[in-house]
């Protein structure tokens, strides 16, 4: 019964030079349902949904909206037919106000003159409907990612979208923000809006969706009824093999035997942090827990020389260090894998090979000439270990899927062969299979005597991977837990230890 479906993507195929991103994929969305779309990094999820707006033109296949058939879409057509997409990388303009972003491409106007007042009023109403508190006049660049995304959702609703497609909407959000995202999804569903929800976090998929579509390697694999399916089953369908445990085993860290302190921060203040004291031993994985914005990334930036501390000392391998720039930190043997891949991480217009070798070009060059054999070997090594999905190592990073871009950045810093490796949310947006590989890599690193500082907002990851956890709240340390004391509610309590002043 095709009338039941508001959106049908039929037999979609998409070819890129050297890659077939989608092979004959079909996806059908019913009215008022939340449909989950899952698959590994590079499975083709983003590509598939982009065909609905014309951001990607399918090589072949049909798009049927409410019975109307299209061979390709445009942003205008999508809008007219009630389809709204929130892309993996956000799409708003920082220099414009919240209200103007809400009306981007379609402002309220009288003739050629925009009616700012009316837009602000309408925006205020739209935000109110969603229970979000945003001043319509605020410039979007001053808003948190959570709010920026809410604007995108508000925009979709305001355009009276019948189908809302969200590509990994929760990846950059804090737990509280994810909660309000849930609420908004339920609200929309009750109004008869259909939602396509892409996520690597299976608990979200289970919580929200009624049916789940699985893709693997550009192939349609299966559609499941959420209520009748199980996590292990989903993982198996996505990865194509069974994953027994979530974390690879690692011997307990022996604090008696390994007493060498590799890195120490003494009374460090600056960049929003106050009086931070931490010690990390050689070969240890120290987890930094806390809510998003607790000051962990800020500490990492100071250690890495990206931002200067105002007070206190860093001691690295017994010597005080004062890195003034990332270059100095890298030369000292410190690496940082940043959380925001678009802004800090990957060189998008450059090949996978160049990206991975970027920090080590100096060391693998004789005079000014690059040792190309080593360059290729390093790249291949990390491509294999991190399961980077790319047709060749010459491919531009911007053509990789979001998760694979993240892996390239990770590979780049691992290649730098540093002593202290700071990983800031290393598995955000990364699929289950690759997550496991990254955990294995962390284990390998500490096994050969490297030290890891792991920043993560994912509780299970933090507990599963750390030898010790230090918890941050509002720019200071609120607690420390040994392995035997690890417990989710304890960490949460420390993380929400907010001083009143």
């Amino acid at each position, binding site marked *: 019964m095709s009338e039941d479906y508001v959106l049908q993507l039929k037999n979609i195929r998409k070819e890129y030079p050297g890659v077939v991103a989608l092979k004959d994929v079909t996806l059908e969305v019913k009215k008022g349902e939340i449909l989950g779309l899952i698959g590994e990094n590079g499975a083709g999820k983003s590509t598939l949904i982009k065909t609905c707006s014309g951001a990607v033109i399918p090589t072949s296949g049909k798009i049927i909206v409410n019975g109307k058939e299209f061979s390709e879409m445009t942003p205008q057509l999508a809008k007219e037919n009630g389809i709204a997409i929130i892309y993996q990388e956000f*799409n*708003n*303009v*920082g220099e414009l106000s919240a209200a103007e972003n809400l009306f981007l*491409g379609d402002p309220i106007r009288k003739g050629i003159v*925009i009616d700012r007042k009316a837009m602000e009023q309408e925006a205020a109403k739209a935000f109110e409907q969603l229970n979000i508190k945003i001043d319509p006049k605020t410039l979007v660049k001053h808003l948190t990612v959570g709010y920026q995304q809410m604007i995108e959702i508000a925009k979709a609703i305001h355009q009276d979208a019948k189908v809302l497609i969200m590509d990994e909407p929760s990846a950059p959000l804090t737990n509280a923000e994810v909660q309000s995202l849930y609420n908004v999804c339920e609200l929309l569903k009750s109004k008869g809006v259909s939602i396509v929800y892409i996520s690597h976090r299976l608990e979200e998929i289970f919580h929200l969706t009624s049916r789940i579509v699985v893709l693997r390697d550009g192939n349609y694999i299966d559609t499941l009824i959420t209520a009748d399916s199980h996590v292990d089953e989903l993982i198996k369908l996505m990865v194509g093999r069974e994953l027994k445990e979530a974390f690879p085993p690692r011997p307990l860290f022996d604090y008696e035997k390994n007493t060498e302190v590799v890195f120490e921060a003494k009374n460090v203040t600056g960049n929003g942090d106050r009086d931070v004291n931490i010690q990390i031993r050689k070969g240890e994985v120290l987890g930094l827990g806390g809510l998003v914005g607790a000051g962990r990334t800020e500490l990492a930036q100071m250690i890495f020389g990206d931002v200067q501390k105002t007070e206190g000392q860093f001691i690295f391998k017994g010597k005080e260090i004062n890195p003034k720039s990332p270059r100095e930190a890298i030369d000292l043997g410190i690496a940082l894998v940043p959380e925001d891949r678009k802004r800090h991480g990957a060189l998008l217009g450059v090949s996978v090979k160049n990206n991975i070798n970027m920090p080590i070009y100096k060391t693998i060059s004789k005079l000014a000439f690059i040792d190309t054999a080593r360059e290729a070997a390093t790249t291949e090594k990390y491509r294999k270990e991190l399961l980077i999905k790319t047709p060749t190592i010459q491919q531009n990073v911007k053509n990789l899927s979001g998760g694979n871009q993240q892996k390239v950045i990770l590979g780049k810093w691992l290649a730098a062969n540093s002593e202290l490796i700071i990983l800031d949310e290393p598995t955000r947006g990364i699929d289950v299979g690759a997550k496991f590989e990254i955990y294995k890599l962390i284990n390998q690193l500490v096994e050969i005597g490297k030290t890891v500082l792991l920043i993560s907002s994912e509780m299970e990851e933090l507990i599963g991977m750390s030898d010790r956890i230090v918890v941050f709240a509002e720019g200071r340390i609120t607690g420390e837990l040994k392995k035997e004391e690890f417990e989710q509610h304890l960490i949460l309590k420390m993380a929400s230890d907010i001083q009143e002043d």
Partner: protein
Amino acid sequence: MKENIINSIKRSAIWLVLLLLVIFFTIANHRFLSMNNLFLVARQVSMYGIASIGMTFVILIAGIDLSIGTIITIVNVVCAYLMVKLGFGMVEAVLVSVLMATAIGALNGFLVSTIGIPAIIATFATQTVFSGAAYLISGGIPIFGFDPRFKVIGQGYLGPVPVPVLIMAACFIVGAFILNKTYFGRYFYAVGGNEEAAELSGIRVGRIKYLIYSLSGFFAGLAGIVMLSRTNSAQPTAGLGYEFDVITCVVLGGVSIMGGLGKISGVIAGVLIIGILTNGMVLLNVSSYTQMIIKGLVLIFAVGFDTIQKKNSVA
């Protein structure tokens, strides 16, 4: 919050620089602060001011237009040629040549948007092409002998105010209106701030680029007419190097070369700074080579300021 402070300092910084310049030249030369001299400054900058509107739009979308100096030249030559050699009436000649300027702008838009040539190359190419054309049309020699009424545009007065200054003021008002009040003006910010987002929101980015480069041509054309009327003779090198001064004014006025950020009010300050600097230096008998050095330094300062500010706001 912090960013707001930085922004407001930045915005007032340019007016502060302007004030300091005025104070400096007032002390250094008693003739500087006379009514006559100030109107002279305004008249001198009027062509920069007019052309800067289009350039502001172009830079707002992270583009550049190197062809405006040449557009000014060819408008001079063509308008003069039409009036003197072909016997066109004043109004017709002005209309035709400004239309031609707009068409050259549209050609830039075609090259940048439809073909996809980077703006710096595309407009550099049209610059070269049309400066050659200007030489061919004029035969390399000045054209003069216009209807005496033609002088009004560049040399006339309305009360105490020079007509070109009025034209400039009108252009600034139109420019500010477009940017703040019209929907397509807001699209300029959207395209400059996040081109992909603009496109995916249903804004036809290609058309916006056509519009912007055409407007840049149009305003350069107007500036060309004012210049022709002021000099009362068309020189085959009339607009040589104008793009440099106009870009300086715009960037000095706080329009970010990375796109998406800038206001007409800032550009007005930028134009005034360049005007006062030039005028003041002439009054102080600074040699024209030294003037070039100082203007170059001013540009470095302006762009440096912009870049440092951007850096701070990212961190």
